[in-house]
């Protein structure tokens, strides 16, 4: 079937801010799909509130609306842009839900807009719990015994008929929000109540617990003519019970015979056919480990995190093909973009093994529970490819960048076999390390399997790695042993540690014996056909298929690894744009990255893609083959920066700002010298290694002080300390991980925080704009609301900032990007920190100013000047509108995480509010972040003494908006005394009704709770904040944020103005 000629203008809905369960994979899918649509001459109107995405670039779509993703906004855009169709299956669950709401309300029909791809009826059948169950029953596909309930009583009654444990899954939520396994009635009531509230339709599925079964997924494609193929299947090493997003996953399945493989494949095809899905779809199965019994767990009638993984694991571009199918093409009309010979109507076959490991945020949320459940907690993931499973696992482990490089990286050696067996019952991110230790202690495979239900085959593979550790420790290191260790991907440093040799000795032994990594292709077809745009992975032994091409200059672009809090999708945006800019300038581009969710690892972004860990050894192996003319590290976040020194040792020139200048910005003494020379003030401080030294510095400066490790991103480990005790506590936490660099202790200054991104060509600088944070210093810049142009600082201060930026950029010999954070106190400007590299705000400021700073920085790195690029140096003229970047958090997903804001970054994503009027921009930004108020007009205020004054003003304004204010004792007294009516509520420890009962009563819009300075040790405040978040109540922990919110509500208007940022 050829392309449908009636489809000319398509509106694509993105997935909004990055949250746990809905992350970069949708930027990847959306970008690929938009490019695929444009390739067909279709005009693309894109809506996504997330400014950090590539899909919101003007070269990806024709019209770009970075607006809140609400039905109302979408309706307004449809009225304005008059698309003929809308594609809702690329924006994750958020996009799909919006598409459904537009369809169900009749709005699309009324405006003559067609839903492209999968129909609304299909989505209802796949997503509605009861509809899906009925449909499965009709076609003979088994589901676990289950019932959809709409109240707790029915849930209890049903569970009594099928027996505990039961799994609870709320309908229409993302990442399994609010789900869980209940082993008894108490747990059932708790989870059910929460799930019913979080579900968009107030429904929760109660079903037979199939925990411990094998979890198998199939990615399926179907076109409008009914042709179906499976892209690949994947096996979760962690059996059912752990969300697939938090599981270690292998592709293809390893422990399924052809009979099981085909049984489930046929089932997946039956389901997609019966649902009449047109496009991509993910089917999840639970397979009984010792029989052919299986259940369909769920179907996602859209592209998903799993489909991104499947695309990268196989080379089959699911989103691209789904977009073409939406336009009317059939699978056999769509060319396989990798081979250019075959068609999309075939099934990829792998001649390698893929392992995915989730990146969990427990290093950021040290108070959080590490246990893994059906509620996804991972912020990102890494993928690795090898020709053996052990090697793929080893590569994935070191790709995580969590100070792990082998199965010895978490030390459980002090536990006995019995203790280990008990520990194995805890399902958390350290389980494979515990299994390894259990094997070391002689616990049998069967015992480990009986506790974990992990297949014996995987346990044996872990045992092979353990045996190699032992061999390296005990046996002489022969060439044969070294070869075998490298075959299963033991890195040199681990071999060195185990053999008692140095890393250089191991490397020399390898080189002397020609034991080098070689590179194989991901080509979708196991070498059956020649490939034209493949990508590469390393193995040891055999033929190397990567060949250095000699015709052009080569640049190595280092990616940013897995998405984590503090290093998100923004750096992928920068890497991709830099790659494109180098390409345009005639370079051959080579990307190294290991994140399957991102655009940078799409097969056609760089000339060559190496899907590899970003460690010095892995990079060096690639450098040995490609011999690049230079490497660029300033776009890949801290991951890439950390490789600078190693690259220089390999003899690879660093393009742009040099390593010694990066060091000068991070090294306290060097940097102080530069500040002295450039006459720029900063907060007083010192560098320390021990708690004693830290206390000495702190007392000299006077409390409060800021304590942080150097060379980190996202303020990791950064704390404000107000006492010697806190210094001791923080230093202990920081020093749990051996620090290569000193720890910084600075006087804490409170003022307006200002941020600048600039391009410097060595002489001139270009500042696209100055951003001001709403929150005072002390809240991490990534967690602050950021406003462009800076609204409250005057011209003189702005000029000072521009001048300081210029001086710093020149003093640090910056070539390319620089990011600087300042504090403005009155007319005074202090520098907080300087990062001579790309930053989190780069995509945002590029989009709202229309100045493509990554492209400019890349050109500058190649040798152009800012003037040559057509820009007048200096601070650029301010825009006529306000663009506000709002942080978005995923606290509800991480049980036990402290939500109060501080110097350590906690947000997972961001959204944008853009408008001519500041207040409207602010309102849009809150709306985009999901703060859609008012609802019940009830709120709770409980603040520390220092904030009471501001609380009165804020309370008064909320009161004027009609809010009823509840407050704890001292806050209530302060408010009432100042004439703001506040109802006093009891503390948690007092008699009911307490503040907790109020929150759980579900009629509260908002909690304003500022924790006492430093670490909040009171359980009360922590409990209030956690309960608020877990009951879906907005919770604000900084007075500035509260002020901004009330301002936005005061100026709320029904009709929003829309801005096409592609026109800026």
């Amino acid at each position, binding site marked *: 079937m050829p392309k449908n000629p009636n489809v000319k203008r398509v509106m694509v809905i993105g997935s909004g801010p990055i949250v746990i369960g809905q992350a970069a994979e949708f930027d990847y899918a959306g970008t690929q799909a938009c490019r695929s649509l444009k390739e067909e001459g279709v005009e693309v109107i894109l809506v996504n509130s997330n400014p950090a995405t590539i899909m919101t670039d003007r070269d990806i779509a024709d019209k770009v609306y970075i607006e809140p993703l609400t039905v109302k906004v979408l309706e307004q855009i449809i009225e304005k842009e008059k698309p003929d169709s809308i594609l809702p299956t690329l924006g994750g669950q958020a996009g799909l839900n919006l598409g459904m709401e537009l369809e169900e309300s009749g709005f699309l029909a009324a405006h003559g807009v067609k839903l492209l791809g999968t129909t609304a009826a299909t989505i209802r059948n796949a997503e509605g719990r009861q509809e899906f169950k009925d449909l499965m029953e009709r076609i*003979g596909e088994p589901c676990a015994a289950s019932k959809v309930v709409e109240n707790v009583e029915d849930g209890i009654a049903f569970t009594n008929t099928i027996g505990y444990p039961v799994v609870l899954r709320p309908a229409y939520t993302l990442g399994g929000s609010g789900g869980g396994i209940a082993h008894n009635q108490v747990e059932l009531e708790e989870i059910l109540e929460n799930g019913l509230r979080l579900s968009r339709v107030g429904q929760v599925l109660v079903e037979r617990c199939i925990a411990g079964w094998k979890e198998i997924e199939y990615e399926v494609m179907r076109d409008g003519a009914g042709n179906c193929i499976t892209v690949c299947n994947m096996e979760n090493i962690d059996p059912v019970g752990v969300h697939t997003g938090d599981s270690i996953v292998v592709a293809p*399945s390893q422990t399924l015979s052809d009979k099981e*493989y085909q049984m489930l494949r046929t*089932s997946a095809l039956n389901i997609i056919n019966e649902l009449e899905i047109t496009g991509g779809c993910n089917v999840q199965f639970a397979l009984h480990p010792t*029989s052919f019994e299986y259940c369909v767990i769920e179907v996602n009638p859209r592209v998903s995190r799993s489909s991104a993984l499947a695309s990268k694991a196989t080379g089959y571009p699911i989103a691209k093909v789904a977009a073409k199918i939406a336009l009317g093409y059939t699978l056999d009309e769509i060319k396989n973009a990798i081979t250019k010979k075959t068609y999309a109507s*075939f099934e990829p076959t792998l001649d390698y093994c893929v392992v995915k490991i989730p990146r969990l945020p427990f290093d950021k949320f040290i108070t959080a529970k590490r246990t893994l459940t059906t509620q996804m907690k991972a912020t990102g993931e890494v993928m690795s490819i090898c020709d*053996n499973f052990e090697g793929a696992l080893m590569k994935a482990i070191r790709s995580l960048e969590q100070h792990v490089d082998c199965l010895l990286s978490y030390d459980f050696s002090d536990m006995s076999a019995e203790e280990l067996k008990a520990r194995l019952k805890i399902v958390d991110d350290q389980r494979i390390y515990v299994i390894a230790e259990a094997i070391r202690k002689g616990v049998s495979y069967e015992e480990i399997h009986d506790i974990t239900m992990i297949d014996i*085959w995987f346990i044996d593979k872990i045992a092979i790695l353990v045996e190699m550790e032992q061999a390296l420790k005990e046996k002489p290191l022969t060439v044969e042993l070294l070869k075998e260790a490298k075959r299963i991907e033991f890195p040199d440093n681990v071999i060195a540690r185990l053999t008692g040799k140095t890393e250089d000795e191991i490397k020399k032994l390898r080189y002397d014996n020609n034991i080098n990594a070689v590179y194989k292709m991901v080509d979708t077809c196991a070498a059956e*056909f020649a490939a034209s745009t493949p990508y590469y992975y390393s193995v040891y032994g055999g033929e190397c298929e990567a060949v250095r091409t000699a015709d052009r200059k080569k640049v190595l672009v280092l990616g940013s690894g897995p998405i984590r809090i503090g290093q998100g999708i923004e750096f992928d945006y920068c890497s991709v744009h830099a790659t494109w800019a180098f390409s345009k300038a005639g370079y051959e581009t080579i990307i190294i990255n290991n994140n399957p969710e991102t655009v940078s690892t799409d097969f056609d972004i760089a000339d060559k893609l190496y899907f590899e860990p970003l460690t010095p050894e892995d990079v060096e192996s690639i450098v040995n083959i490609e011999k690049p003319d230079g490497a660029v590290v300033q776009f890949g976040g801290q991951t890439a920066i950390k490789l600078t020194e190693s690259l220089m040792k390999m003899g690879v020139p660093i393009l742009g700002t040099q390593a010694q200048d990066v060091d000068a910005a991070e090294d306290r003494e060097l940097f102080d010298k530069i500040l002295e020379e450039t006459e720029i003030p900063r907060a007083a401080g010192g560098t320390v290694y021990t708690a004693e030294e830290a206390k000495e510095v702190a007392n000299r400066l006077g409390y409060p002080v800021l304590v942080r490790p150097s060379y980190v991103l996202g303020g990791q480990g950064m704390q404000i300390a107000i006492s010697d005790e806190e210094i001791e506590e923080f230093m202990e936490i920081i020093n749990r991980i051996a620090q290569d660099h000193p720890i910084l202790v600075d006087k804490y200054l409170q003022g307006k925080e200002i941020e600048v991104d600039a391009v410097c060509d060595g002489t001139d600088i270009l500042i696209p704009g100055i951003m001001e944070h709403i929150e005072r210093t002390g809240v991490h810049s990534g967690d602050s609301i950021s406003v462009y142009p800076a609204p409250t600082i005057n011209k003189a201060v702005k000029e000072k900032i521009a001048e300081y930026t210029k001086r710093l950029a020149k003093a640090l010999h910056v070539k390319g990007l620089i990011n600087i954070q300042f504090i403005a106190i009155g007319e005074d400007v202090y520098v907080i920190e300087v990062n001579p590299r790309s930053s989190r705000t780069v995509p945002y400021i590029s989009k709202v100013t229309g100045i493509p700073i990554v492209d400019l920085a890349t050109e500058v790195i190649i040798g152009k000047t800012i003037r040559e690029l057509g820009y007048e140096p200096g601070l650029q003229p301010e825009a006529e509108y306000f663009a506000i970047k709002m942080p978005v958090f995923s606290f509800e997903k991480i049980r036990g995480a402290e939500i109060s804001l501080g110097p350590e970054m906690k947000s997972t994503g961001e959204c944008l509010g853009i408008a001519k009027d500041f207040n409207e921009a602010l309102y849009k930004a809150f709306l985009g972040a999901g703060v859609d108020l008012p609802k019940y007009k009830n709120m709770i205020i409980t603040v520390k003494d220092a904030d009471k004054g501001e609380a009165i003003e804020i309370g008064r304004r909320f009161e004027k908006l009609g809010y009823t204010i509840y407050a704890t004792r001292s806050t209530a007294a302060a408010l009432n005394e100042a004439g703001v009516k506040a109802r006093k509520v009891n503390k948690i420890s007092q008699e009911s009704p307490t503040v907790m009962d109020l929150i759980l009563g579900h009629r509260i819009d908002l909690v304003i709770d500022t924790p006492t300075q430093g670490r909040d040790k009171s359980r009360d405040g922590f409990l209030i904040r956690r309960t608020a978040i877990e009951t879906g109540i907005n919770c604000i922990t900084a007075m500035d944020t509260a002020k901004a919110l009330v301002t936005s509500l005061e100026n709320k208007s029904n009709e929003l103005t829309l801005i096409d940022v592609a026109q800026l």
Partner: protein
Amino acid sequence: MKAFLILEDGTVFEGTHIGADKEIISEIVFNTSMAGYLEVLTDPSYAGQAVCMTYPLIGNYGICREDCESLKPWPDGFIVRELSRIPSNFRCDMTIQQFLTENNVPGIAGIDTRALTKILREKGTMNGMITTNEKYNLQEVLPKLKNYTTGKVVEKVTCSKKFILEPTLHLEQNGPLSGSARFHQEDYERGIREHKPSLVKELNGSGLRVALLDFGAKANIARSLAARGCEVTVYPALTAAQEIIDAAPDGIMLSNGPGDPKECTTIIREIKKLYDTEIPIFAICLGHQLMALATGADTHKMKYGHRGGNHPVKDLATGRVYISSQNHGYVVDTDKLDPSVAVPAFINVNDGTNEGLSYTDKNIFTVQFHPECCPGPQDSGYLFDRFINMMKESLAKKGEN
């Protein structure tokens, strides 16, 4: 123990010896299926060949006897990247290492199977030797490899005498219907393992009698018909056409099998006689090629063939594409096809080669791929139902006459 794979073009791969301890010369082919190594090993069409699996991890679930497609493995040799040191599956009867050794199949592991596949892709299928003799002499080995031919393999793999596969009378005999299997703890503890599931939902072939000519048939061809209620009589490859005609079957099934179809001159002659009857015929793979040769078409050897479970075939009547299981090194030439005899019914979407024929004014259709799957996708199993319908219509017509 070290082992070597020596190719006709002089390439030598060094690896580890697996399976039986013997030296073999064979035609080297590759199969791209990711699961189903046991079905590949026991497919008689691999007689006269040594198979390289492109998927690197083989043996993970061991050997489940009920999944064998014939009584023993047929390849001369087995070439893999890595054999799993333990198997894991609830039905596993033995390890693949044991299976190869017990059945006298030698092999080599630990070689760069991808590099081997690329050589075969670029230069075409060629002969090779698997040996553990470290002192091999290339000058002596290469001429031997060049001169090696298999020849008459069908006669080696066909059954020695005819036998009858009883029809399924109750659906439960086929094993659990796919999707309805249930785990029973007590049975499991007694050592009872569930049988593999079946996709057959009705006994639409009840009462029909099918003659199956065994050129090296995979067990699932006869089983697919018997499971639908047909009584299947399996005949040795060299059975005279008249014997089959005399048995008056309702339909004839020509099976898959190994080797060059043009070598099967006697069989081709007999098939022509079957063609001349009015008995409905369905043919698979070698059977499809033989029918084409019997009716005046030609076949040729492909550069490296189709072996795997991911080949798209398009049904030209409906435009629908199905993913199929394939194993063939020869193909029917369609440019020399006489449309008054037969027209293409299926083509391969990847390379456009012929994948099936529909015979003009005849109750005959033939396919190059494997609707019986095992291993591979079950998408085209509906062709057995098409065959059953054809037999029923033919019977109905006979009744009218």
